[in-house]
């Protein structure tokens, strides 16, 4: 009697879990269909290769695509070393109970929840004005780095923490130096955490609008260097749908492009992380 009641509950839980996953999947498919459908049917190759005309109503997005890649590139170039360093310090060089470590962690969690417009105004004040970088791709990238760092550090930290301490003990017992431990053991095992952090970080960086309007700016011409102002894809989509009458159809095309870009960047991240770090364990 008791047993059958138990199994009923178990069936029910299974159904609920399945139901919820299917619901999520369906809403995802619906969203992608709604977003991609109108763009996909009208997009042509030259959309990727020409510059925007008539405020983006016609022409392509080549300059905007390049600006976006440069902004994300600057962001990752700065965020990855700082993020890895901080995460390693938090896990390996300080105890989880230490005063400093706890406070850094708490501030990171608060920073991760700060609205992006605040980062935008901060970036505008610090990078554009105080450091004199002006509206530029580098200002935008640095601002995004500030935004992405909390997520990146915390996910890498979780990744490193999930490594069983037995591994560390055996490494120490074998007389490995701190550096060798980090390079040969901790980092390769932390790859899943790093990948999660990077994927979330890139997602936030590519999707960002508010922080970039005030830092990398609105100019839609092809940037000739990273000290030029350049419009990102998300800013372009925002502008086309909010400020440009008749820009809707090109906004949908840009949405399609941004989804492809995210897919491409995420795949590349996983591939590179795999190549550069994960194989270390097997080689050595």
């Amino acid at each position: 009697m008791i047993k059958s009641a138990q199994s009923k509950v178990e069936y029910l839980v299974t159904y609920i879990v399945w139901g919820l996953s299917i619901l999520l999947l369906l809403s995802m498919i619906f969203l992608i269909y709604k977003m991609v459908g109108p763009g996909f049917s009208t997009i042509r190759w030259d959309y990727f290769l020409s510059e925007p005309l008539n405020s983006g109503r016609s022409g392509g997005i080549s300059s905007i695509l390049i600006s976006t890649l440069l902004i994300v590139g600057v962001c990752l170039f700065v965020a990855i070393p700082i993020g890895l360093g901080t995460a390693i310090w938090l896990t390996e060089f300080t105890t989880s109970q230490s005063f400093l470590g706890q406070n850094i962690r708490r501030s990171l969690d608060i920073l991760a929840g700060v609205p992006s417009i605040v980062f935008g105004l901060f970036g505008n004040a610090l990078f554009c004005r105080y450091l004199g970088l002006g509206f530029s791709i580098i200002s935008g990238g640095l601002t995004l780095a500030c935004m992405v760092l909390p997520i990146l550090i915390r996910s890498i930290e979780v990744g490193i923490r999930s490594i069983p301490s037995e591994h560390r003990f055996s490494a120490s017992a074998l007389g490995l130096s701190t550096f060798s431990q980090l390079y040969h053991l901790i980092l390769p095992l932390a790859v899943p955490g790093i990948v999660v952090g990077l994927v979330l970080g890139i997602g936030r960086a590519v999707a960002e609008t508010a922080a970039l309007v005030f830092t990398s700016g609105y100019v839609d011409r092809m940037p000739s260097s990273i000290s030029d102002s350049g419009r990102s894809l998300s800013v372009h989509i925002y502008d086309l749908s909010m400020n440009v009458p008749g820009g809707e159809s090109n906004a949908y095309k840009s949405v399609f492009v941004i989804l492809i870009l995210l897919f491409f960047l995420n795949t590349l991240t996983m591939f590179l992380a795999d190549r550069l770090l994960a194989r270390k364990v097997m080689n050595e």
Partner: protein
Amino acid sequence: MKEKLTIQLIMALILFLPFNRVIASEQKLIITGSSTVAPLMLEIAKAFEKKNPGVRIDVQSGGSSRGLSDARSGLADIGMASRGLKPEESDLKNYVVALDGICIILNKNNPVVKLTDQQIIQIFKGEIKNWKQVGGLDAAITVVNKAEGRSTLELFEQYFKLKNSEIKASVVIGDNEQGIKTVSGNTNAIGYVSIGAAEYNVELGTPIKLLSMSGVLATTENIKLGLYPLSRPLNLVTKASPEGLQKKFIEFATSSEVNTLVQQQYFVPAKK
């Protein structure tokens, strides 16, 4: 080995990124402000750059108040504002580039030809629900409102002293084209769009009609003459009297040379 090569390649790419390539003899202007004016100014700037090689004009958006404060603080050479200057802002100099006006549109087959401001307010608040109450057919009114964040919505609400939460909309639309399509396809709809876009569609034969506001016909001509009440100027703003490149650009942006560009953005040129 292969991995090292990849890393070296990436490093080389980063190092050779032209970090600060300053082109000598290049002149640069920074324009910031209203997001309504920014798309138009971007096009004007491109036309100006084409006419004057070696000149670069960076247009940044961010809102009218930002444009005014940047012009005042000197962060921008020129500010953009999608409204007239207030008395306390009279220290700034302003130049009208274009005008923006909105009009109430009805379907051509709707027998109603006139609505008072009060009736319009009541219709959008949902207090008048049937065309019969304002002298039309016995049919429910379809209220077409703009999506939040639209500059036309802002101007409309400002003029009629309405809050967005008070408007009882049946349909919420994005751009002018969508508004015109909705009203032309529904005999009982009422909406408001940019006059430039509406006139253009009437010429094309779209079945809509433009209502007069307080007795003034909704035409681009009346906006230009300053008679039509529901309009606003799109301004360029400077701190002091413009000089050099600044002056040259303002002269270009306020000349009749930009009229086509202005009309392409559904605004009304300031000069004939």
